[in-house]
């Protein structure tokens, strides 16, 4: 292999310190990621505002018309009621409404539910969000960790029998839509084979169990979250395994792995600190896509298993046209993904020292 390797420009350590402190802070990876997260959040908020306020058939107008037609309310009265529910002053010009809306959001004011009058959207969200974070969080951790370990294993045993079996399984699992896998789990585990009692696993907690730092609570919470978690894990682990496998195969050919062997390092140390750590780095950039996919998928999975998390509420509010709740839940789901991505980015930069220097790529 006569590849010519040109030496990179000397990144002199002294040079780095010459840059001013302020520049370095504002242009650091960390701050770049914060700007990016804030900017994305702003775009999403604005988009949501336009969806509810500017579309020809936007929910505010729909709601006003509904009141006028169904209850014979005069336009002004209907408009006032809509304004109260959506927490927007409809007499203002549009940009005023936009600013109002933003201001309200900053104070956690997302209006009131249309269907359960008097219930602030924020309180609905606070009630259901933790369960989604709990189930999705655990599922992502399990599938990510397990996927990395299995992928590493497959790369070490590549072309072996187990590798072939796992590869086929991973390919099949990653092409089954998650909601279909959920349905299959209910049909086979619950109905056909009677291994589990699907009915008693519905909901987030059994009746009578109070949230708190008790073993009983955690056991019950896990019991109810088990099916959604199993579904998320099974449908995402395949792509982790396959990506990790190919990434590991690449790293195994790197010179530094040969050098590590030449240095007489112990096998375990090479696998963990040299192969595993480097091979798993690209996985963190994929985490962004996975988080969005799993959180988005929670809408379907929670509905199938009747697990009352934020996704379940979103589908409910969409079906019942509870626009204020729908809008609030959508925003929160998206913000949750933005925040999760931010932490994934930070974790990545912590694991890959090359990132910290400044610009990525």
């Amino acid at each position, binding site marked *: 292999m006569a590849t010519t390797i040109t030496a990179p420009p000397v990144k002199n350590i002294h040079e780095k310190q010459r840059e001013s402190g302020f520049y370095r802070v504002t242009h650091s990876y960390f701050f770049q990621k914060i700007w990016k997260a804030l900017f994305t959040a702003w775009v999403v908020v604005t988009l949501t505002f336009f969806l509810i306020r500017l579309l020809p058939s936007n929910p505010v107008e729909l709601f006003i018309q509904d009141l006028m037609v169904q209850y014979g309310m005069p336009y002004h009265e209907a408009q006032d009621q809509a304004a109260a529910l959506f927490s927007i002053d409809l007499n203002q010009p549009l940009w005023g409404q936009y600013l109002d809306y933003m201001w309200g959001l900053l104070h956690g004011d997302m209006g009131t539910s249309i269907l359960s009058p008097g219930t602030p959207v924020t309180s609905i969200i606070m009630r259901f969000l933790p369960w989604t974070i709990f189930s999705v969080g655990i599922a992502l951790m399990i599938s990510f960790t397990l996927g990395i370990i299995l992928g590493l294993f497959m790369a070490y045993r590549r072309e072996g029998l187990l590798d072939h079996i796992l590869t086929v399984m991973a390919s099949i699992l990653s092409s089954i839509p998650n909601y279909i896998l959920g349905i299959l789990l209910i049909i086979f585990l619950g109905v056909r084979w009677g291994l589990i009692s699907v009915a008693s696993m519905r909901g987030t907690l059994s009746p009578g169990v109070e949230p708190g730092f008790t073993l009983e609570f955690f056991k019950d919470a896990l019991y109810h979250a088990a099916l959604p978690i199993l579904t998320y894990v099974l449908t995402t682990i395949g792509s982790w395994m396959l990506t990790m496998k190919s990434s590991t195969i690449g790293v195994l050919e790197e010179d530094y792995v040969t050098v590590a062997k030449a240095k007489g390092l112990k096998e375990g140390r090479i696998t963990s600190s040299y192969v595993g750590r*480097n091979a798993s780095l690209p996985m963190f950039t994929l985490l962004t896509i996975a988080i969005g996919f799993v959180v988005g998928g929670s809408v379907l999975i929670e509905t199938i298993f009747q697990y009352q998390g934020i996704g379940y509420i979103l589908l409910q509010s969409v079906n019942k046209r509870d626009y204020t709740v729908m809008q609030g839940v959508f925003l929160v789901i998206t913000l949750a993904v933005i925040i999760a991505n931010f932490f994934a980015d930070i974790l990545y930069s912590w694991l890959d020292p090359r990132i910290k220097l400044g610009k990525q790529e």
Partner: protein
Amino acid sequence: MSNESQLIWKHEAGSGTPLSLRNVHIIYGARKGDVQAVRGVDLDLRAGESIALIGESGSGKTTLGLGIVRLLVKSADISQGEIIYRRNGTEVNVLDLDKKELREFRWKECSMVFQSALNAFNPVLRVWDQMRDTAQSHGWKDKKAIRQRSLDLLGFVQLDAERVIDAYPHELSGGMRQRVLIALSLLLDPQVLILDEPTTALDILTQRTIIDLLRKLKEEQHFTMIFISHDLAIAAELADRIATMYAGRIVELGSADDIFYRPRHPYTLGLIRAVPKVVGGFQELFSIPGSPPDLIDLPSGCKFHPRCPYATDKCKTEEPDLVTVGREHEAACWHWREVEEELQTNPLHSV
């Protein structure tokens, strides 16, 4: 560790033979057939000397280097031969070592400086971590002592030790990394050092500093080195003896002076003639016709005959062995005397 206090063990020149290769064959399994990368190499490495292995890519020199520490890829197999390693009167065949013994043997007895130091370091670990895990894997417990020795060695290779030790590899330039790798290779005070194209990936000025450093190792510390290169000039500068490899065999072996001024194998002669000279202005540059042989389907007889200007029918059928052509000078050619005559009429390096 008996020599901890000393930076580098002062190797005694010319005492014993730490490494001997006996009839080493290395084969790569490939889809189309076996690749015969190394075919019956015999070589004795004397204490304190440095041997250069030179040849084109595909001549088997890097394979041989990796084979000595058994770092070949899975598809490769050392099918025959012995790699004898000696220290303090004991003798082991490296090929007989089990996994654990082999792990302990590597780096402590025989360390290796790789071709591309750019990629030789784990990008996510600091230099210090990579020094430490090497020492700890070989039973060093005292972190302070490891750090002190690492700093000393980094200083020895003329780096700003305090800064470099806590740097990540990407914060260092190519030349700096190559020097860190040399420092790292000395960490456990090995008896033999294998250098695989240690300067190839570097720019010309950085090459110079690395060569100077290696010469210092050789001249002041009498380090025992195997030096793999395709660059004859560097080999001539750093090596006591030079072995020319072609198609997996050593075709000529002799002192650096003999090889450089009095080559007896047409292939060595071709390599020397192919080197452009800095002095002397414009001259016709010689190149060896043809291309390196197909290692799966080797030519019959002398493997060099399809490219050799001296080839006769004998060369096509019988492969020559190494024969003595001078004092401590061997070549594997039926026509080495003709090469000698040719050099008398048309000498090399006529300035």
